[in-house]
């Protein structure tokens, strides 16, 4: 960032995250322009729909490769939800499946050169995490009524400790959406920015740039892993929060 004013070879690792308007739309005072973020959101959705509609075109008894992939996604997330939130949680499986696939494909498409990573923005991950937080809290109150407040009071703690623990529990509960969203966005930003920095080294070092190139090869592979793992982490945390709301502790 120090050499932001430099020209020519200068590479800004944050430039890839810039929001660019494609179709300006203003409703009242609100800027709802169709941006590159929106475009890549729809690319992620389109990729998911493409995969699933192509995979399930026959609904074959013996799946081919594409169908196996789609069924793998389905079985993986479904088992995850059932393991984390029980059979009762399966009612919310479509929501969690949607979140998982959206994040997974947004992350993966973000690995393409010149693409945009939707999930690298706190606006999107924060909105997702807040939506999960509000929904899960609402489920908890609808299922348990005011009894849900006892979620914040550990049953086995000694009486004098209960108020302190309750405060801690409430704080940790409300920090959930923050950690939930920052974890995903920060992982995406850090990984992609690091790739860009390495690429800058490679460009600047000439022939010796082979070394950072090799490093990038490994980091890119690692970044693909992170993309998948962060989608999984976001989804399983959603399922765990759901389990807390459904079954308390």
């Amino acid at each position, binding site marked *: 960032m120090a050499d*932001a004013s430099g020209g020519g070879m200068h590479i800004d690792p944050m430039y890839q995250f810039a929001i660019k308007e494609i179709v300006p739309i203003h409703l009242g005072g609100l800027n709802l322009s169709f941006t590159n973020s*929106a475009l890549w959101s729809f690319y992620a959705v389109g990729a998911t729909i493409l995969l699933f509609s192509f995979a399930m075109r026959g609904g074959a008894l013996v799946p081919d490769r594409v169908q196996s992939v789609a069924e793998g996604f389905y079985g993986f997330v479904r088992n995850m939800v059932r393991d984390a939130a029980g059979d009762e949680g399966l009612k919310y499986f479509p929501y969690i*499946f949607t979140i998982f696939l959206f994040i997974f494909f947004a992350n993966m498409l973000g690995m393409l050169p010149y693409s945009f990573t939707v999930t690298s923005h706190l606006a*999107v991950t924060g909105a997702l995490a807040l939506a999960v937080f509000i929904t899960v809290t609402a489920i908890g109150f609808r299922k348990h009524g005011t009894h849900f407040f006892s979620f914040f009071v550990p049953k086995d703690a000694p009486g004098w400790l209960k108020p302190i623990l309750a405060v801690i529990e409430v704080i940790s509960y409300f920090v959930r959406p923050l950690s939930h969203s920052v974890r995903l966005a920060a992982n995406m930003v850090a990984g992609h920015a690091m790739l860009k920095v390495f690429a800058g080294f490679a460009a600047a070092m000439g022939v010796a740039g082979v070394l950072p190139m090799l490093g990038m090869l490994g980091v890119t592979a690692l970044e693909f892993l992170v993309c998948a793992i962060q989608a999984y982490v976001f989804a399983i945390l959603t399922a765990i929060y759901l389990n807390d709301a459904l079954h308390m502790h």
Partner: protein
Amino acid sequence: MATPAHAAAEQSAGMPQLDFSTYPAQIFWAAVALFVLYRYLSRRAIPQMEAALAARHEAIGGSLEAAAAARREAGQAEADYQKSLAEARARAQATLAEAKARSDAALAARLAEADASIAGKTAAGEARIAGIRASAETDVRSVASEAAAAILERFLPGKADAAEVSRAVEDGLAGLKRS
């Protein structure tokens, strides 16, 4: 919000993530995209997936059931086979025993018949032998009496008494038989 069309170059020094003016647009379009994805998944992809998995589950279950039925059938056939084998063996044993009994009986009957016929023939032979002996004895007696009478007639003519001679011959024959 004062400059809606913010070029990227203008904010290259900062983190685009912290430009709150872009938040509404990002959140709005992400929500639209998520809604589209949710509708597609819940209306089409998941039901299709469930149908395919249920069909597979059913097919596998059906195949397993068919295999179990086939196995039961095979077991039944095996039992039937064993049973009919045992029956056939028993029948064969019975037939064999019956045939043996019949042949034994026939043999015994033939033996008894043969014994009877042999006994009859023996008895007839013995009777004939007895008859021949009796007739021979009678012939010997009469020949001896006649011979003795003839001899006496030669040496003492008119003195031979037939009854006396025959008694003497009897005595002589008895003496012969005794010695």
